[in-house]
Structures are given as C-alpha cells and as structure tokens.
C-alpha cells in the first residue's frame, strides 16, 4: 500500500488501511495495481458501477470491499 504525507484511514477488505486523501476509487485500484475490469467494488456496502469509479472519492472511515471471482464449486 502506498503511503503519502496526507492520508485518510479506511477499512479495506477487512483491514485498516491508509489511502491518499481525496483519492478516487479508480485511483485506489491503480495504486493497488488492480485492473478495474477484474474487480467489483463495494463502498460502504454499496456496489459501485464499474464505469464510474473515478467519480467516487474515498473519505475517512470508509469501508471498502474489493472482490473478484475465485475457483469455487
């Protein structure tokens, strides 16, 4: 996780994390080296439309879930 001088504390995939203040969801994915097409994002329990990740900015205390498909039966 990249750390900058000004960050906000969030809950990211179940763990506390620091993300750049005012970062967009697309920015977050980029910083995590995640291809948007491979991820589904839930911000504070709300699923974000994939084509509008850049419109959502992350704030202090946000809960973010980044999910994808894995092998399962």
């Amino acid at each position, binding site marked *: 996780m990249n750390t900058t001088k000004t960050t906000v504390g969030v809950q990211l995939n179940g763990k506390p994390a620091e993300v750049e203040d005012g970062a967009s969801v697309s920015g977050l994915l980029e910083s995590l080296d995640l291809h948007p097409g491979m991820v589904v994002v839930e911000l504070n329990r709300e699923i974000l439309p994939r084509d509008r990740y850049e419109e959502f900015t992350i704030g202090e205390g946000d809960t973010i879930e980044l999910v*994808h498909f*894995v092998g*399962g039966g």
Partner: protein
Amino acid sequence: MTEVDTVQGAEDALDTRLVVGGHTLASRLIVGTGKYATNEVMIDAIRASGADMVTVAVRRIDLDRTQEEGILHHLDPEEFFLLANTAGCYTAEDAVRYARLARAAGFNEFVKLEVIGDEQTLLPDVQATLEAAKTLTAEGFKVMAYTNDDLITALRLEDAGCVAVMPLASPIGSGLGVVNPYFIREIKRRLEVPVIVDAGVGTASDACVTMEQGVDGVLMNTALAAADDPVRMAHAMRHAIRAGRLAYLAGRMPSREIAVPSSPTRGMLD
C-alpha cells in the same frame, strides 16, 4: 476410439440440448473450479469434461498476495459461461449481497444460490434459500437454487421463479452418490424447470445413475478435483453423463429375478 467419431453424427440426434433460463448449454454437465492442485489441471479437466458452464465463487481480493489467484486470469469468459455461486453464505441477506456483487462483474444474470444452514454438513437452509430466491428473482436474477432433496421445497423454489432447482445427491464433497433416488426422481417428475443434481457425486457411476433418474443435468466439483487424475476422471464423467442420459431416454430392459436365455432354445442337436 474412432467408432466414437463415426457414430457422433448419429448420436447428436439422440438427445436435445439443456436450456436453463433461456441459455442453451452444450453439455448436461456443469463443473466447479475449486480445489484443483493447479490452474493448469483445472483447465485441462474442465475441457476434458466437455462442460461449458462453470461455477465460480465471489471472494475478497487478497491484497497481500499475488493477484494470480483471480480465476479470470485462467478461465476465458469467452470460452466458458461463468455461473457465480453464493457459497459460504449462511443468511439470505449475505447470499443476496454476494449475488449482487457477482452480477456487478458484468458477465450474466445467473447465480447459483447457496444458503448453508450448518457448517458440519453444509446442508442448505431451505427457508433462507427460499427467501433469498424470492428477493433475487424480483431483482431480475436467474436463480439456480441449491437445495436438499425435499420435494415441497423444490416446488416452492420453482414457484419463486428459480430457473433451475438443484437438489443434492448427498452432502457437498461427500462423494456418496445419489443416496435417495426416489426423492430425486419425484422432484424431477413434479417440476417443470430443469432439475440439476448438485453435490455428492463421487465417481462416474454416480453421475450415470443420477442421469438415469431422468434429471436434466449434474453439477460436480470435488469428484474431478479430488480424483487421483482429474483430467482422466473428467473424460470419465463426460461419458458417464452421456451414458446415463441416453440410457434414460432409451428405456432400460425390465429387471427380473429369473433368468432368460439370450441364445435360441430351439435348434439344439440330438
């Protein structure tokens, strides 16, 4: 086995394609993608099985590990129809949440609904499953519902708008085969939507027996992934599903306790 090729044309006319929620499948076998030793073995096994619909699970990305774990790095969505499941959910609310996340991935509106009621047996919570099924069908999902072998529940899942009802043959990962063929047969006899037996198949004969009950398809995962040779077992299962289906359609000979000669009794020498 060149005779397979030569008869293939003739054989295709012997069965119809399975259609679930408007989607036509090439195979009556649906396979899972979990628990394989390697992704290479998984792909080879799935190809050998002939299945075109495969199930996947929805999980958090593990940010501490390589991203390679994502199944889409290995499974081409162009080649396979991805059926997301809600495995691991113990409440209707959780199952609905996972289904929505799965749909947001943008592949299709299908979901394999699973709401587990007990950790030790992984048996379904039929009440919660029914509740989630109603919510999801109302939201436009095409729900394929994993359930137990209870006819009453199966009928209600059909009423709730599920596009397929998927009773278990025996507990997930048990490999005990169809323990109660009567119930499976009755469910098939009474429902109009496709009945796809999900969970419990352990080996080829289990798959064959299941299809001989007249059901529309079988979904399996562990029987392939946990076989000593998953690819070879996948070939076996492809044949077993065909064998059981065709035998069901062909109409078996009556079984009787007395013997009946297969060679003529007349024309013997003095």
